[in-house]
C-alpha cells in the first residue's frame, strides 16, 4: 500500500502546530530569524527546518484570499533527487516516502539541483556537511503512528491514506463545495505525481507552486543516461573504424609511392 497525504488549504487555519511538531519530534534546532513584515518564520527550508507554513495574501477574482501553505518534501513518485544522486543516498520506497541514507551521502549537493521544489538543504555550518529533508516521519509510521505534523493538525487539513482514495476524496470535496475550491489537485499529475497532494481555494501558481509539467523531472536526462551503452558501442566502433580507415589510406599511399619509385 502506498501512503499519501492530502493537504486541504481551505481547511488550514495557519496555526503552525505542524511546524512546531516537526521540530520537536525530529529534534531540530530553532533558528534565529528576524521579522520580515509578514508571518513567515522561518521564511524557508533549511537543514533544521523541514516543514513550515507560508502565508499568502492573494487577490483572486476580485476577492482577497489569505491562504496558508504547508510546505515540506513532496515525496515525488519519480524523485529528481534520487535520480541525480551519484551514490544512491535517496531512495523512493514502495510505501511512499523518499528516504535518505546519510551514510552514503558525499555532500555533493546535486539533489538540490535535481529537486524542482527546493527541498533538500545542506548543513553549511558543519565541518563534514550532509543534506537533509522531511522524512515523512518514517520512524513514527514504522510503529503505526501518523507523522508528527498530521497527528497535531487540529482542522484535519492534513490527512493520510491510500493515494487513489485521497484523490477520490479531493474530487468529492470539489463536488460538494464547488465554490470553495479551485478544481485541481496539485501533485496528482505534477512531476509524474507526488505523494503529497494539495487542494486549494485559488490557482496554485498564485501560491508559488512551480509549474513542473506532468513528466518526471529528470525524464530527459534518464533517457540520455539509458543510452550510455549505445554511446559506448558507437564510439568504440566509430573510432576503430576511423583508425583502420586512415591507416589503410596511409598504407595505400605508401605502397603507391613505393611502386612508383620502383619504376
Amino acid at each position, binding site marked *: 500500500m502506498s501512503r499519501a497525504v492530502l493537504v486541504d488549504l481551505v481547511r488550514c487555519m495557519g496555526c503552525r502546530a505542524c511546524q512546531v511538531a516537526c521540530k520537536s519530534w525530529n529534534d531540530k534546532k530553532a533558528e534565529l530569524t528576524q521579522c520580515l513584515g509578514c508571518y513567515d518564520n522561518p521564511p*524557508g527550508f533549511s537543514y533544521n527546518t523541514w516543514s513550515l507554513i507560508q502565508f499568502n495574501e492573494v487577490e483572486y477574482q476580485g476577492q482577497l484570499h489569505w491562504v496558508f501553505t504547508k510546505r515540506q518534501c513532496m515525496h515525488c513518485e519519480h524523485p529528481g533527487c534520487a535520480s541525480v544522486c*551519484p551514490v544512491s543516498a535517496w531512495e523512493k520506497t514502495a510505501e511512499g516516502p523518499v528516504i535518505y541514507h546519510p551514510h*552514503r*551521502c*558525499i555532500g*555533493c549537493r546535486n539533489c538540490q539541483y535535481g529537486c524542482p521544489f527546493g527541498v533538500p538543504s545542506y548543513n553549511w555550518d558543519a565541518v563534514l556537511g550532509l543534506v537533509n529533508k522531511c522524512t515523512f516521519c518514517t520512524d513514527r509510521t514504522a510503529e503505526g503512528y501518523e507523522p508528527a505534523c498530521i497527528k497535531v493538525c487540529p482542522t484535519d487539513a492534513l490527512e493520510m491514506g491510500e493515494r487513489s482514495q485521497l484523490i477520490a476524496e479531493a474530487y468529492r470535496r470539489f463536488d460538494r463545495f464547488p465554490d470553495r475550491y479551485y478544481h485541481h489537485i496539485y501533485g496528482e499529475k505534477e512531476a509524474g505525481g507526488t505523494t503529497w497532494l494539495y487542494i486549494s481555494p485559488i490557482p496554485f501558481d498564485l501560491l508559488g507552486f512551480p509549474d513542473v509539467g506532468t513528466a518526471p*523531472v529528470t525524464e530527459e536526462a534518464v533517457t540520455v543516461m539509458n543510452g550510455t551503452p549505445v554511446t559506448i558501442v558507437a564510439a568504440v566502433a566509430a573510432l576503430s573504424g576511423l583508425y583502420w580507415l586512415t591507416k589503410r*589510406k596511409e598504407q595505400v599511399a605508401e605502397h603507391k609511392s613505393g611502386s612508383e619509385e620502383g619504376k
Partner: protein
Amino acid sequence: MTTIVRRLRLPFNDMHQPGLMGKIVLALVALVALSGVVSAIYRLFVGLGPTTNLTDAYPWGLWIGFDFTLIAFAGVGFTMAAVVHVLHLEQYKPMARAAVLTGFLGYVSVLVILLLDLGRPDRFWGFLVYWNHHSPLFEISWCILLYTIVLTLEFAPLFFEGLQRPAIVKAIHKVTVPVVIAGVTLSTLHQSTLGTLYLAMPHKMHPLWWSWPLPILFYISSIGAGLAAMILIWILASKVFGRKKIEMNLLQGLAKGSVWVWVVYAVLRLGDLLMTGTARPMFAFDGPSVWFWIEMILMALVPIVLFSLQRVRESQAGLFIVSLLVTLGVLANRFNATLTAQYVNRFTVESVTETARYVPHLLEWVMQIGILAAAVLVWYLAARFLPVMPEAVKDEH
C-alpha cells in the same frame, strides 16, 4: 631544481635554465600555489560555511564553474590523441605529449577542487560502492576516474623515457591504440554527460541554456576548447622554453579545424533555439540574454570569423588571442549554466528574504587560483625535465 635532480641522481635532463625574471615569476606562481594549498587545508578543517559564500540558493558556484571549464580545456588530451592516433595525422605527433600532460594535470586539478567541494571529502569513493546508473554525476565520476588512469598510461612513456628505461616505454607503446580509443570513448561519455547533468534540471534553468542537445553541445565545445588549449599552450611553452621556431603550419591546421567545430556548435545551438521556439529570450537584453550573447560571440562568432581569415591564422598573436577568447567563451558558458541560467528556489530562506545572491568568497578564489597555479608549475617542471616538447628545443640552447 637542478641541484635536487642531481642530488637524487635522477637521470633527467634539465632543458631549461630560467633567467632572473623567470625565477621571480616561478617564485610568485609557487607562492600563489602554496596559499591555495594552505587555504584548502583550512577549508578541510572548518567546512564549507566559513570558507565559501555558497548557500542553499546557490549550492554550486565558482569551483563548479571552473571545474567544468577545466574539463573542457583538458579535452585537449583526447582531441589530440584522436587526431594523432585515430585519424593518423602524424604531423601533429610532436604536440601529443604536451596535450596529454595538459589533460592529465587538468583532470588532477579538477579532482582536487571537486574533493574540496564535497561536503564529505572523506567519502569521495562513494560512487565506487553505491551505484546509481541514472545519475549523470555517477557516470562522470567513473569516467573521470578511468580517464585519469588512461591519461597516466598515456603520460607514462614520457616519464620512463626521461628515466631512460626504453624497455618499459616499448611495452606501453604496444597498448597505445586500445588505450587511446578507451580514452576518447571515456571523454566522449563524460564531456557529454556534463551536459546531461544540466539536462536533469529542466525546471531550474533558463530556456537559453536548457535544451535537448545539451549533452552534444557540451561535447562539441570540449573539442573546440581542446583545440584552443593546444594553440595557447604550444605558443606559451615554446616562448618559455625559448624555441625559436614555432610550427605555424600545425597551429594553422588546428585553427582551421576549430572553425568547423564551432560552426557545428553554432548551427546546432541556434538551430535548436529557433526550432523549439525558444529564441525570443535571446532578444530580451536582460542579464541572461546579454550573457548568452557574450558566450556565443566568444565561442562561435570569434573563432568562425577570425580563424577563417588567413591573416589571423598566419599571425602568432592572432592565433593566441583568438584561442584565448574562445577559452573565455567556454568559461562564460560553463559559468552561465551553473549560475546565470539557474532560477533560485523560491523556498530557500535566501529567496524569500530576497537575499539570494552569490559572490564568491575570497578563499574560494585563493583555493581555485592556487590549484591552477600548482598545475602550471608542475606543467613547467615536467616539461623542463621530461621530453615533453620536441628535441629541437635542446639544439637551440
